[in-house]
């Protein structure tokens, strides 16, 4: 029983990370139909910058903020300078973003090298604490990560559901062309959303570098997980990203714990099942 609960907690931790990474990805896809294959690179960039900021200032939250902002800026720059030029040409955008992800990965390898980085945690989070009832220790940072993901999720939901910007984003998801015909500069909104997606990816990168660690390859790992999460949850739906992350995170950990040989199969079995039964994703809406 204790083992099961610990595995569940690990699954939730992973799900929280997956959600942070996938929420920005799904937001960008939902509005722009852009499959941003550089999303993982933005996450890794955020992680590295967050590491540097946290090391220099010695203040962990500042690292999260710095990593998030750096990736937000890079995301806005990518949309403004490159992907925005191919708006409406999704295949070209996707290919360009693959090229970008390779270039960014190589530049980061050049600057930060091939070693593994872990962000130093503040003392309050560095240790573990005893879980009530179970009587076993658990890393504090992992619980902080879960709380962080929940807070980010709720904030994102509030922004999208309650603000004018959120209404414009939703309108753009529904009918981008009509939004333009009503006088909205969609190109500008796209840049804002790309920055928002980058912010989420960057923060996810710093959090990943704190709870786990980051190294070359982390970018592709999270890109893949984001793709799977978003396919399962439904493209363009933040709630779907949360649900997809939960399913995939838990499935991965249960698989690892109870059927290590076939662990990775569970993830893709879920994906195949969803694609067969509900191709638009669990909370996605089919194209009309």
């Amino acid at each position, binding site marked *: 029983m204790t083992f099961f609960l610990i595995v569940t907690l690990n699954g939730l931790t992973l799900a929280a990370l997956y959600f942070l990474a996938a929420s920005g990805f799904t937001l960008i896809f939902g509005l722009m139909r852009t499959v941003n294959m550089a999303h993982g690179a933005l996450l890794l960039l955020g992680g590295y910058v967050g590491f540097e900021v946290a090391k220099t200032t010695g203040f962990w939250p500042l690292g999260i903020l710095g990593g998030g902002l750096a990736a937000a800026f890079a995301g806005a720059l990518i949309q403004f300078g490159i992907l925005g030029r191919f708006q409406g040409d999704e295949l070209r955008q996707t290919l360009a973003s693959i090229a970008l992800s390779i270039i960014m990965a190589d530049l980061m390898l050049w600057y930060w090298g091939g070693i593994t980085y872990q962000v130093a945690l503040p003392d309050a989070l560095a240790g573990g604490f005893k879980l009530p009832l179970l009587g076993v220790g658990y890393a504090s940072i992992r619980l902080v990560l879960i709380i962080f993901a929940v807070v980010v999720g709720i904030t994102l939901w509030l922004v999208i559901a309650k603000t*004018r910007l959120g*209404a*414009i984003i*939703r*309108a753009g*998801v*529904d*009918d981008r*062309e*009509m*939004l*333009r*015909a*009503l*006088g*909205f*500069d*969609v190109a500008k909104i796209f840049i804002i959303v790309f920055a928002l997606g980058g912010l989420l990816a960057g923060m996810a990168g710093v959090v990943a570098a704190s709870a786990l660690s980051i190294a070359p390859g982390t970018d592709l790992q999270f890109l893949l997980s984001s793709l799977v999460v978003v396919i399962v949850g439904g493209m363009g739906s933040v709630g779907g990203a949360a649900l997809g992350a939960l399913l995939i995170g838990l499935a991965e950990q249960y698989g690892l714990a109870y059927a290590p040989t076939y662990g990775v199969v569970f993830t893709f079995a879920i994906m195949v099942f969803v694609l067969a039964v509900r191709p638009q994703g669990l909370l996605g809406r089919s194209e009309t």
Partner: protein
Amino acid sequence: MGIEPLLSIRDLQVHYGTSHVLHGVNLDVDQTSLGMLGRNGMGKTTLCAAIMGLVPISGGSIHFDGHDITSSTPEKRARLGIGYVPQGRRVFRSLTVEEHLRMMQRKGSEWTIERVFDTFVRLKERRRNLGDQLSGGEQQMLAISRALMLDPKLLVLDEPTEGLAPAIVSDVIDLVVRLSTEGMGIMLVEQNIHAAFAAAQNVAIMVNGLIVEKLPTAVLEGDIELQKRHLGIEPGQITAEEDLV
């Protein structure tokens, strides 16, 4: 004439792939109401989309209110004062009525949310409902309202009475007439010939991607022969728009 028309279209060409949809449309729209008639598939909706910049054009020019908008973006055209009420209404399904209007709100605009709610009481009652929870008539009111909140000089309506109950059709017509008397330019694309006759001072007829006639409504109303030739209908035969589809 002398003064420049509000909207001036010259030799407008549009291709969809290999099919040639608009074959050199020439059309002026001024601060009155113009009904655009024609059978299905003659290019009326394409013309509206081309005016808004939503389809690529392959030749010709469009001028609006002293600006050459031939290669302007849709958002620029909207901000210059072209309000677009598209076919099928295209309200945003995941926005509430109120969000639709709040999104369009600008300082100093003649059309405020309050004015919209005064004009369309039904929308006020349904302000918390999402776009896809509205009836066709309510969606139409909303589609017109959000276009009006741009304070347009020209309102382009593409089949606003399509699929609406007769009572709602006459509401839409009354509104169009009122806007026209307030000095707004109106271009009203219609399948429903009676709606166009009731709402528009002049009518243009589109056949195979060309404007073949432009004449005062009263003249076309009296010319059964012309109606038959271009619109292929016996007057009085149509009771509902289904007959035309």
